[in-house]
């Protein structure tokens, strides 16, 4: 097991898959000469050349469509959005082209493409650059949505996403790129659609994904000090959601908190709550509490920004309330 950063884990996945399959190529803004806006693609241009590592103009709608078109005829594009905020310009191609092609064509034409890049907030990037859209993409039948929280998952899930025959929305975390963690050597693939217990526990289930996983783990540590044993369940894939894993955990703990970085209204957590109360109504000893980003555009000021984000304190408060400890 080597310790690598989330960034390098993604870089390994790209390199390995491009070696494995000549149909895999990377396209996006600054992925080549600039080595990637966040250096995820460092070294790939030199290694694979400009036909397989393609710098594009700032035309998200256009190059997303190019990726879909190339995938329609059998290539396996990995389309990088510098951030998912900019992908709003391309969303018509993801929703109206990528997600529907297989269905409209009665299975004749699939779109084996991966759309990836960092989502959510970083530090003081302001309202237009600090948004989490996973619940949007997960709303769309035809798309899959993957959000790794650790270097090992980042590598293993990206490899699966590239090999998947359906369009995959792969949302990374800008704040996670420098996160270090152990990654199994050699071929390491993590299946899509499987949640992962990042910390087992008996008293309460904290459902989370992406950046909120480390927040939940921090909260769980502190809670352990209060004799509260929290289970941290990392969804990893948002669509298809691993309902079984969620229900299984909650039917053991009977209490649940759902944390996510995004806005509350119709977020991923709302779907998790719906599923739990529908399928495990009698298992619940308390209402499920969600912890989400504040329901406002992200402010620039660092204190306001901090207050808008999910932190261990708010997760702990939610756990206390589902345990009626407050």
């Amino acid at each position, binding site marked *: 097991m080597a310790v690598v950063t989330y960034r390098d884990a993604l870089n390994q996945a790209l390199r390995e898959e491009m070696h494995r399959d000549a149909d895999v*190529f990377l396209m996006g803004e600054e992925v080549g000469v600039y080595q990637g806006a966040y250096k995820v693609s460092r070294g790939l241009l030199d290694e694979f050349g400009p*036909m*397989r590592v393609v710098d*594009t*103009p700032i*035309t998200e*709608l*256009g*190059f*997303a*469509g*190019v*990726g*879909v*078109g*190339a*995938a*329609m*005829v*059998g*290539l396996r*594009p990995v389309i990088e959005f510098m951030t998912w905020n900019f992908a709003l310009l391309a969303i*018509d*191609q993801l929703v*109206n*082209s990528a997600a529907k*092609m*297989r*269905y*409209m*064509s*009665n*299975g*004749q*034409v*699939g779109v084996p493409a991966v759309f990836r890049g960092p989502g959510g907030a970083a530090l003081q990037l302001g309202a237009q650059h600090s948004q989490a859209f996973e619940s949007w993409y997960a709303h769309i*039948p*035809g798309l*899959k949505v993957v959000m790794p929280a650790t270097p090992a998952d980042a590598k293993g899930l990206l490899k699966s996403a590239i090999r*998947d*025959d*359906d369009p995959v929305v792969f949302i990374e975390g800008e704040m996670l790129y420098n996160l270090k963690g152990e990654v199994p050597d050699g071929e390491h693939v993590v299946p899509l*659609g499987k949640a992962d217990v990042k910390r087992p526990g008996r008293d309460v289930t904290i459902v989370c994904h992406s950046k909120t996983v480390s927040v939940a783990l921090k909260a769980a540590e502190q809670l352990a000090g209060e004799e509260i044993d929290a289970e941290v369940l990392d969804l990893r894939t948002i*669509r*298809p*959601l691993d*309902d079984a894993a969620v229900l299984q955990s909650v039917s053991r703990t009977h209490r649940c908190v759902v944390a996510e970085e995004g806005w509350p209204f119709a977020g991923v957590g709302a*779907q998790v709550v*719906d*599923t739990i109360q*529908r399928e495990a109504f009698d298992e619940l000893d308390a209402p499920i509490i969600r912890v989400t980003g504040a329901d406002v555009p992200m402010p620039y000021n660092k204190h306001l920004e901090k207050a808008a984000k999910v932190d261990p304190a708010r997760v702990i408060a939610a756990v206390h309330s589902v345990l009626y400890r407050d």
Partner: protein
Amino acid sequence: QMVLIRRFEEKAGEAYSLGKIGGFCHLYIGQEAVAVGSLAALRADDYITCSYREHGHALARGISARGVMAELFGKAPGCSGGKGGSMHLFDASLGFLGGHGIVGGHIPLTTGMAFAAKYRNTDQVGVCYFGEAAVNNGAFHEALNMAALWKLPAIYICENNRYGMGTALERASAIYDISERACSYDMANEVVDGQDVLVMHAAMERAVERARRDKHPTLLEVRTYRFMGHSMSDPIHGHYRTREEVEDQRKRDPIAVWSQRLIEDGLMDQAAAKALDKEVMEEVDDAYKFADEAPDPEPGELYTDVYASTRQPAAGEAGAS
């Protein structure tokens, strides 16, 4: 082929009024020479995408009248299994990669197919058909810039029928000659008479050569005209154009232009023309009968082809609950 398309569309219009075809239905009557003349210049392994006004292109590319008509009827043997519909005709085996419903949305797709041809170093060509109203859309601009920048084997065919729904070209575009838009991308361009199938064919052959051999994309502005309303729900001449204008345009009916020439050149006589028409009518009637009697897709088809794996994500069952 032009006659086939004409008769097919007339029949489709008939079926629509009988309620056998639903949804939006955009007829190609008046523009037949564009699809027929241009597609004849392509190879079997080239890639084609169209807008929602694509019945003619589908037939000209070789999808059977039965396959297209059955799709309009939403039946299982339709070329998209009855799940796509009039605006979404597909036949991957013919490189016919859709009917697309979002104006301009398929232009970048074609750029991507041309990219794939270059990537694989084949000499395939990607061809995209769209209306003149689509050239004002950002997707057109972004897709053509990349095709020219990367020297891709793509051909963009703008079927300029003067109107986007009820909006005349000059009320939507700051310039009248769409072909001039090519200058923004330093792209080859030509203005083509779309009512003369031979002229169309010749221009397309030049474009195909540029794409296949020189890897240089082309923008063709094809001047044509829509004889019918925008879709079945739109009158032939609404508030936006006059009966006179339509009548006047009908004088240059592409089929008349063509048969006239054949007759002048002694390549065809009235009898032969009649025979051809009869033959075509039979094919269309057969397609109609086939479509009418064909089965609907199985109810279970509702949930297939959402993903490569037939399995539905959990939310799917919730939706069905």
